[in-house]
């Protein structure tokens, strides 16, 4: 691959990305352009996927529950909807896995044509890629959402219990999807041919891991079912949970950006040395 294989859009995209990560002095390369273009497409698909999942879950819930009626319907009807929900969850996890596989295939093809290959002698662990605070935040968010969903199962109203069950299934599906994505991110081979591309590989991995663990779907999932039927205390608890989560995520994001800027300055100095 040569510089001629990159269009102006590619060069601009790579330059902006490098500048964002404190590597403004590094020349855009076709390897980076290929990998960033694949990630941009996948990010778009990965954003549409949860939205489609939430819509589909809402549709199943609405079809299954006629307006104003308690969900004490027939056994077959209830089981049909749970089966569809399970299939939706499996579909979400499968689609996320396929997106991860596609990115890995693009990376593998880009790496196959490199005359030189570079790698770390010590594998980057989850602490380096995701960071302790983000990992703790993701685990706490899922655990908190699960506790609240189980809490909603204890109410007397059967409709509310059914909605909580749907939330619980959805949360399990999202959790499995995140674990599968993280596994892909942490285990797929490094694609680099020098120190700069090795640094870029690490940054891309960290970005992918952060995207995968941002709990947007978790926060949105109760809107589909539970908020319609849950008691007041539950809705208040969920709003506080989301507000605290958003505040914590903002703090972690700002902290990470400041640390990355400090590291970026050091990396630029090292690259230019």
């Amino acid at each position, binding site marked *: 691959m040569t510089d001629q294989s990159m269009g102006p859009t590619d060069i601009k995209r790579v330059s902006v990305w490098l500048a964002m990560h404190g590597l403004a002095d590094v020349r855009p390369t076709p390897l980076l352009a290929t990998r960033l273009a694949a990630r941009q497409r996948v990010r778009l698909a990965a954003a549409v996927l949860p939205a489609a999942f939430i819509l589909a879950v809402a549709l199943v819930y609405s079809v299954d529950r006629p307006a104003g009626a308690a969900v004490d319907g027939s056994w077959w009807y209830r089981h049909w909807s749970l089966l569809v929900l399970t299939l939706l969850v499996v579909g979400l996890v499968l689609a996320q896995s396929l997106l991860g596989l596609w990115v890995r295939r693009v990376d593998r093809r880009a790496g196959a044509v490199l005359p030189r*290959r570079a790698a*770390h*002698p010590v594998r980057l662990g989850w602490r380096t890629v995701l960071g302790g605070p983000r990992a703790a935040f993701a685990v706490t968010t899922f655990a908190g959402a699960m506790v609240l969903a189980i809490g909603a199962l204890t109410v007397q109203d059967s409709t509310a219990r059914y909605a909580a069950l749907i939330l619980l299934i959805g949360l399990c599906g999202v959790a499995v999807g995140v674990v599968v994505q993280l596994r892909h991110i942490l285990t797929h*081979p490094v694609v680099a*041919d020098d120190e700069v591309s090795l640094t870029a590989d690490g940054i891309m991995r960290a970005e992918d891991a952060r995207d995968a663990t941002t709990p947007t779907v978790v926060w949105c999932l109760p809107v589909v079912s539970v908020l319609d039927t849950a008691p007041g205390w539950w809705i208040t608890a969920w709003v506080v949970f989301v507000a605290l989560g958003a505040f914590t995520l903002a703090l972690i994001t700002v902290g990470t950006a400041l640390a990355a800027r400090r590291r970026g300055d050091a990396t630029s100095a090292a690259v230019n040395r």
Partner: protein
Amino acid sequence: MIVIDSASPVPPFEQLRAQLARQIQDHTLAVGTQLPTIRRLAADLGLAVNTVGRAYRELEEAGLIETRGPAGSFVSAAGEQGRERARRAAAEYAAVIASVGIDTHEAIRIVQAALTNATAASPSSCLATSRPPDGDLP
């Protein structure tokens, strides 16, 4: 960082072995550091599993790494102990040289001759230490 250049005349396993050996000897990789699995490093560097396996085997034979079953390969303390032993032997040799009144240049020539003989006798045992590091790969 480890770099493997497919255009280099040096075989890939030797490039990998020499770079890991150098990083272990200059303490870039500390004693007890876990190395990637053979399969994982092979995937990262676009090499065959056997190529990485051969490099690991030679590093193990040289005492620079040790494999602890399924836990993986780790930088061994044996290399560090070997250097400490060599330093003690050198101090004893220096004391002998001083006591018999041999001058420094001759003492160094004696050591060089002994090293040449030892290298000729067992070339494989000196793989990790006698070859110059090839960090400046083309």
